[in-house]
């Protein structure tokens, strides 16, 4: 305890020494550390004003982007899902569709049927994964769950079902043929 007090005293003394040592220079370069640490009411007011503007622009930008995304009509190409034919029942496979940036998940349920969904959770876009034990899609971020056969929400915070990717089996190969956004409304 005594040692700690000595250390504190030494540090405080060093601080005093530094202040004294820099004092002559402060006449030419008037930098006041104590004043620098203070925020005036006016500065704080301006900061709040700028924050308000940023929040307004953020909300507007987000809404505009959502509206634009809803209006744009995408055309989908057909793509083969590599390795899907070897997928064992009650297991999953990750792939990208319709573009390389859009991650998706293919599930082969216990009855042998194929179902594919966009991998982004509809709550806050975390990637969902297939839980073999529970035979459902689960989101690890906020504990949401989706039905493996329909993509519908089973429980948790997600507000709508997962985006569905339409799959077709042609000559034993599995093909992704389209993507459908489920739930919600269309922008008018």
């Amino acid at each position, binding site marked *: 305890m005594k040692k700690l007090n000595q250390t504190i005293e030494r540090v405080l003394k060093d601080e005093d020494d530094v202040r004294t040592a820099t004092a002559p220079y402060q006449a030419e370069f008037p930098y006041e550390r104590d004043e620098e640490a203070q925020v005036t*009411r006016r500065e704080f007011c*301006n900061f709040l004003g700028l924050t308000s503007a940023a929040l*307004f622009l953020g*909300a507007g930008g*987000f809404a505009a982007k*959502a*509206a634009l995304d809803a209006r744009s009509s995408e055309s989908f190409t057909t793509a083969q899902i590599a390795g899907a034919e070897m997928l064992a029942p009650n297991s999953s496979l990750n792939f990208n569709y319709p573009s390389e940036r859009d991650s998706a998940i293919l599930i082969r349920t216990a009855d042998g049927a194929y179902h594919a969904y966009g991998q982004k959770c509809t709550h806050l876009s975390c990637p969902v994964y297939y839980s073999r034990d529970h035979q459902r899609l689960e989101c690890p971020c906020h504990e949401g769950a989706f039905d493996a056969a329909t993509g519908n929400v089973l429980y948790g915070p997600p507000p709508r079902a997962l985006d569905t990717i339409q799959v077709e089996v042609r000559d034993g190969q599995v093909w992704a043929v389209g993507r459908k956004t489920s739930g919600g*409304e269309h922008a008018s």
Partner: protein
Amino acid sequence: MQANGKSERPSERHHAAVWQARLIMLVMINIAQLWILAATVDAALARHYAVLVPLVIASGVCFLITLSIIRWWRPISRRKTSTGYVRTSLKDQ
């Protein structure tokens, strides 16, 4: 009232009270706008497009109120002149 060994004049007390009220209101509006932004993100991800416009309008109204508080709602001990706001002395009031 004693503060730092000096007595505060009534006008200074009122001035400080107005400043405090302004700051509190601005902070509250910022918090409301944060909530609106969170609701906007939620609505956009859920594709509930009908509520997006009202949310953006609400955020805009909050911003306008903030702007009006910063720009016009000032303590009465300040008088507007052609060069801006200046503090008036007590005998001028």
